[in-house]
Every structure is written in structure tokens, then in C-alpha cells.
């Protein structure tokens, strides 16, 4: 994603300065594109095919699957557990990405503008650490944090015996993912805020605008594009995030089973590869729509 602004710059006419020639250039590109084709494009396309079969992990349909048309999709329409997964994903994205990471990330970027470098670096270090640690490690940290007997949260609140991950699984996941992903929004907004002309902030202060008014009328118009970009990206990542599986495995009783976890449970626990492919395809389409909007925005800006 760091490369997001690339297409605009790459349009300068390339000159073959090393004397590579088109033939050898294609040879250079080939290995990468073979791998991408085999492990990214082919699976994506194949999802469509598996999605219209009754392919299963075991049993008769594992050996000779047959084409069942769109029945997997009509099944999804009436599948209460799928609706549940969609709803939980929406809650997860809205709570942890659109509200949680966005607001906390912006708040951090905003209040850190003029703090002392030492304070700023310390706070940033923790926020970044939450982002770069391996996902299994952070998942375990939070499982320990939320634990019923002796977890740190219960120790802090004096609520011994509360099983947070069982009683409030979605709230736990929302807090967890806000913690996990805020760094990206913080960094994006930090650099966006540098584009706000200091003179305008100064004049806002002169006329006695309140902090909130300054944000709304001076800052926000400058960073509107960044807010949209950030929201799209973090929503996309959050909707596709598999870490809820590491904390709750979708339980208890499907209460935290977001779409990625549902796909895994249907495919590898239930063995219904055909049906889970149909759902995967729906997820791919949703990703495609969000990405197209995102790329459109980028193009307009550049």
C-alpha cells in the first residue's frame, strides 16, 4: 500500500537504458507473473468454479463433485449463520476500524503535533509495537489479558471471574482490533496534518475559534481525502482479518464468527468446500468494490 501513488509517476516514457530489449524484459517479468498467476489469480478465478459445485472435503462429493448451479448462493441467502457472520463483520468493521482506529488514530495524530519529542516517541513506540508484533503473539497477549482467572483486566477492574471473551466476545474483538491497528491511521493522519497550512490554524485561533470549530472548518477540508482513503483501507483489512479466530474461534455459539472465521469453519471444520467457496467469492466481490472506489479516489487526487 506504500506504493499507492505509483501509477501516476510511472507514466513517464520508459527508455531501455540497459539495452534489455522487450524479449528479455518479458523474461524478467515472467517468473513473478507465473507465481502471481498460480497462487493469486488462479485461486481467485477457481473460487467461482468450486462455488457452483457440491465439492466436499470428504465423502463421495470429494471424489466426484457435481455442478449444482447457483444453489450454494441461494443457500447463503437463507443461511441464518451466514447472515449472522455478515452482521458481526459489519459490527467489527464499524466498531474497530471506522470508529475505533479512525478516531483513536486521528486523536493521537492531533494531540501529538506539539508535544515534546520524548513524550511523542514513547507513545508512538507503544502504538507501533502493537502493530508490528506477530499476530499470534498479540492474540495470546489479549487472551491472557481477558482471561477469567487471573487475567490482567479482571485484576485492574476487580471483577474476578468475569469471562470477557465468553460474555462479551464482540466487544472484546472490537477493543482488540482497535488496539492492533491504530498505528496505521495515526501515521497516515500525522502526515496528512502536516499538509494543513499553519497560517490557517493561526487565523482560526486569532478569531477565537474553539478546538472543535478549528477541526471542522480548517483541518477537515484539507484532510478529507485522507480520511476516505484511510477508512476504505482499514475497513478492507478489518473485514478480511483472521485474528478473531485466534481469540475466540468464532465462539461461543457463533457469537463472534465474522465472515473469514465462518469461511474457515464451514470449509475445514464442516468440510463444505463448495459452499464456503461461494461465500469466499462474495467476499472477493466486496473487496473488489471497495478497492475500485479506493483506486478511483487515488486517481482523482493525482
Amino acid at each position, binding site marked *: 500500500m506504500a506504493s499507492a501513488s505509483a501509477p501516476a509517476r510511472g507514466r513517464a516514457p520508459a527508455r531501455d*537504458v540497459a539495452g534489455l*530489449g522487450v524479449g528479455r524484459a518479458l523474461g524478467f517479468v515472467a517468473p513473478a507473473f507465473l507465481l502471481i498467476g498460480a497462487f493469486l489469480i488462479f485461486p481467485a478465478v477457481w473460487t467461482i468454479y468450486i462455488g457452483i459445485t457440491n465439492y466436499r472435503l470428504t465423502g463421495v462429493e470429494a471424489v466426484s463433485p457435481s455442478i449444482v448451479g447457483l444453489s450454494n448462493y441461494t443457500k447463503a441467502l437463507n443461511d441464518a449463520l451466514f447472515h449472522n457472520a455478515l452482521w458481526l463483520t459489519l459490527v467489527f468493521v464499524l466498531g474497530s476500524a471506522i470508529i475505533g482506529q479512525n478516531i483513536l488514530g486521528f486523536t493521537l495524530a492531533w494531540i501529538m503535533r506539539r508535544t515534546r519529542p520524548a513524550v511523542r516517541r514513547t507513545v508512538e513506540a507503544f502504538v507501533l509495537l502493537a502493530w*508490528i508484533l506477530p499476530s499470534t503473539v498479540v492474540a495470546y497477549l489479549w487472551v491472557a489479558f481477558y*482471561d477469567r482467572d487471573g487475567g*490482567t483486566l479482571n485484576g485492574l477492574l476487580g471483577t474476578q471471574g468475569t469471562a470477557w471473551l465468553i460474555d462479551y466476545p464482540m466487544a472484546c474483538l472490537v477493543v482488540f482490533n482497535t488496539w492492533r491497528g491504530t498505528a496505521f491511521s495515526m501515521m497516515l493522519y500525522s502526515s496528512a496534518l502536516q499538509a494543513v497550512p499553519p497560517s490557517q490554524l493561526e487565523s482560526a485561533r486569532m478569531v477565537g475559534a474553539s478546538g472543535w470549530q478549528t477541526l471542522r472548518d480548517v483541518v477537515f477540508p484539507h484532510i478529507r481525502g485522507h480520511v476516505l482513503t484511510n477508512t476504505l483501507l482499514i475497513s478492507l483489512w478489518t473485514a478480511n*482479518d483472521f485474528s478473531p479466530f485466534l481469540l475466540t474461534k468464532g465462539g461461543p455459539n457463533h457469537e463472534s464468527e465474522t465472515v473469514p472465521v465462518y469461511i474457515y469453519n464451514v470449509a475445514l471444520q464442516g468440510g463444505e468446500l463448495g459452499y464456503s467457496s461461494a461465500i469466499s467469492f462474495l467476499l*472477493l466481490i466486496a473487496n473488489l468494490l471497495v478497492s475500485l472506489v479506493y483506486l478511483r479516489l487515488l486517481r482523482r487526487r493525482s
Partner: protein
Amino acid sequence: MSTRSLPPTPAYVLRRIGFYVLICAITLFFAVPMLWIASAPFDASPGLGVHWPDWTLENFRKTLEHPYAMHSMVNSLLICVTTAVAVTAFAALASYALSRVRIPGRDALLYGLLLLSSVVTGTAAMVPIFVMMFQLGLIDSRFGVALVMTGGLLPAAIFILKDFVDAVPKSYEESARVFGASTGQILRDVVLPVARPGLATIMVWAFVNSWGNFLVPFLLIRSIDKQPGAVLMQTLTDEGGSVNLQVLPVFSLLFSIPVVVLYLLVNSRYGFRFHGGIKS
């Protein structure tokens, strides 16, 4: 927010206090869940809560003696080095050709790559990838895991590197050519040294991304002696038990060190920050 030469008003003082309370609250929110990884590995009776440890290195000995713990680190290293080298090599070749030679349909290709890197996520493609590797007989193969990860990381890697190569002036190559250097010499002696920081960045980025990847090896690896660290942690967590409570904190700490060290290294050398790429 500053009141210049006027003495601070009560409202101003209140606002400053509120400001620091907010900073402290946010810092605590980020720090407290992490404290456990700093205390539990050294605690004689490690629990899941944070408390001042009863210092010991016994847990480290237990972890080193664990039949699978260190072995899984080797597996992680094997998978991630393979992935990082493959991603860097193939992305370097592709991005150089795409930057310097006008290949027909290049812009469409690049646009497609950018789309792919965000649309086909690990979770959206897990079923077909599992089925494909199953039919290819590559289930339970570390090499298969590295292949899938390489395919997943390449589009973003090509993009980042191409941006980088575009920024390298073409005059170096031109002058080398004027002096009669062959294509091979130009690539080896002119382009490669100039591109080294970019290549290092991509290699670290690919390594860190595959080091933390849980889903791909979790789907594809069955036997415990082939599991990389990310999956072994999950296996040990599911097993539970007091032995694992001694091993897991130490293992979490050791498993995190490479990522943090590489991050600090790259950040101090190139001022570069990890960007999302493909999260899975």
C-alpha cells in the same frame, strides 16, 4: 492553545491537565496488554495476569528443552528466508523490466497488480488455495507454504520496488552504456548497487510479513514438527497445561524479537515504516 504573554488562566491549566490525562490513558491502553510479555517469561510461577515477577530463567530452560519450540523457529526461518529471497529476486527482475522497458500493456498490468494485492486476501482465497495445494500434494510442505506466501506478497513488492527503481536516475546506466558495458555488466555493477536499499527494504518487509503470517501455514501444515512458530503457538495454546504456560511467554518473547529488531534496523537506516501490504 497557548496564551502567549498572559499568565495562564484556570481554563488553560485545566485543559493542559486534561491533555496529559488523555495521553496517559491512551498510552496505558496500548502498554498494559503488552506488560505481560515483559514479566511472565521471567516469573517463577507465570500466570496469565501481570504481576512483578519472581525472577528466574527456568522458563527459558524449559523452552529450549521443549521438543518443538526451537524446532518451529527453524521452520519459520526456513519458510521466511525462502519467501523473502524469492519475493525480492522476482520482484526486482519484474520491477526493473517494468520500469525501464515499454512492455505492451504495462499500465494495465500495473493497475491489475494493485487491484489484486488488495482484493485477493488470504482469507478470501483460503478455500481454493487449500484445495489447490491438496490436489497438488503440497499439503504439509514448508516449500508449499513459502510458494503461496511468495505469490501473495509479489504484487505489492513489485509496486513498492518499481516506485523505487523509477526514482533511480537513468543517467548511470546511460553512461555505463556509452563506455561499452554489456547489459549483464550494467545490471550487476550499476543497477544492483544503486538499488540495494530498496532491495533490503523489500526483503525485510517480505520476511516480517511471512514471519507473522498465521493463516497460510495453519491451513497447509498438518504435522507438528513442520509447524512454524506462528502455528505452534496456537497448538500450544489449545493444549493448555502448566508446562505450556511456562513455555508460551518465553516463546512469544523470542518469536517477537526478530520482527522488532528488523523494524528498528530498517527504521533507523532508511527511515522507512512498514506499510500494510497484504494482511492475512
